[in-house]
């Protein structure tokens, strides 16, 4: 895979040379790859939202019997906002859970909308082992899987879950490790 040309695959879930910057980026540091979970992982939350919507439509037949117009209107507006928020929550979680590989380090942004935000940095020179794992019906069909990056000593190990082309991502990181070792 050519890492010198800019390209975006799978709804920006596997971007090579993206136009992205992060807070602690150094002056001579540039982003090589950025990945997030495969968009197919959003399918199940979106199906759930769709089921909620169908349920709301059916519940309206029941509401007509017991509630007045204002109450029905309010319930429908509020439910639609809740359903939209459910989509939004999943979309935001997907969008901001990213892994960034630069020429110097690997940045793992774990973001949960309401609970926590965790950003971990791993120097490429500290990486010991990179493992790509993929398994299951959907993962094989759509080519996505997990990438585990092991570091030396007590440093936190980094993991990227459900990213597209995990073996390609591992290959890119391995090439960077080789470059770092040869150039010191």
């Amino acid at each position, binding site marked *: 895979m050519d890492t010198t040309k800019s390209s975006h695959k799978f709804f920006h879930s596997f971007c090579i040379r993206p136009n992205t910057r992060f*807070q602690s980026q150094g002056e001579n540091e540039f982003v090589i790859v950025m990945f997030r979970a495969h968009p197919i992982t959003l399918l199940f939350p979106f199906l759930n939202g769709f089921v909620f919507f169908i349920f709301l439509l059916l519940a309206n037949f029941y509401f007509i019997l017991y509630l007045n117009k204002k109450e029905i209107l309010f319930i429908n*507006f509020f439910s639609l906002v*809740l359903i939209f928020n459910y989509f939004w929550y999943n979309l935001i979680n997907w969008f*901001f859970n*990213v892994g960034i590989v630069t020429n110097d380090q690997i940045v793992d942004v774990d973001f949960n909308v309401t609970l926590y*935000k965790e950003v971990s940095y791993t120097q490429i020179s500290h990486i010991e082992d990179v493992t790509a794992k993929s398994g299951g019906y959907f993962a094989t069909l759509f080519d996505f899987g997990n990438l585990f990056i092991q570091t030396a000593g007590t440093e936190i190990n980094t993991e990227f879950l459900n990213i597209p082309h995990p073996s390609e991502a591992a290959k890119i990181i391995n090439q960077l490790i080789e470059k770092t070792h040869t150039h010191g």
Partner: protein
Amino acid sequence: MDNVNLTTILSTYFSGAYLIHFFNKAFSITSTMVFLVYVIVIHKQIEEVTKTIANKKQSILVFISFTQIFVVLCLVLFALFYL
């Protein structure tokens, strides 16, 4: 005027229909206000994370989350004054 006494007033206000309306309104106001706090938290978190990872398209996300606050605020007002 003979019928206007404490018993009739209390029976009007504590009748089944009035109580159901009262609980509906109270529940609607509480739930929309809780939800308003939740969408404000989401907006703040999005603003915070966009500082960590900067991208040109992220201003749209901030705008959508802000619009959501406005919509939920409208729902709070709906529950307060129209319901």
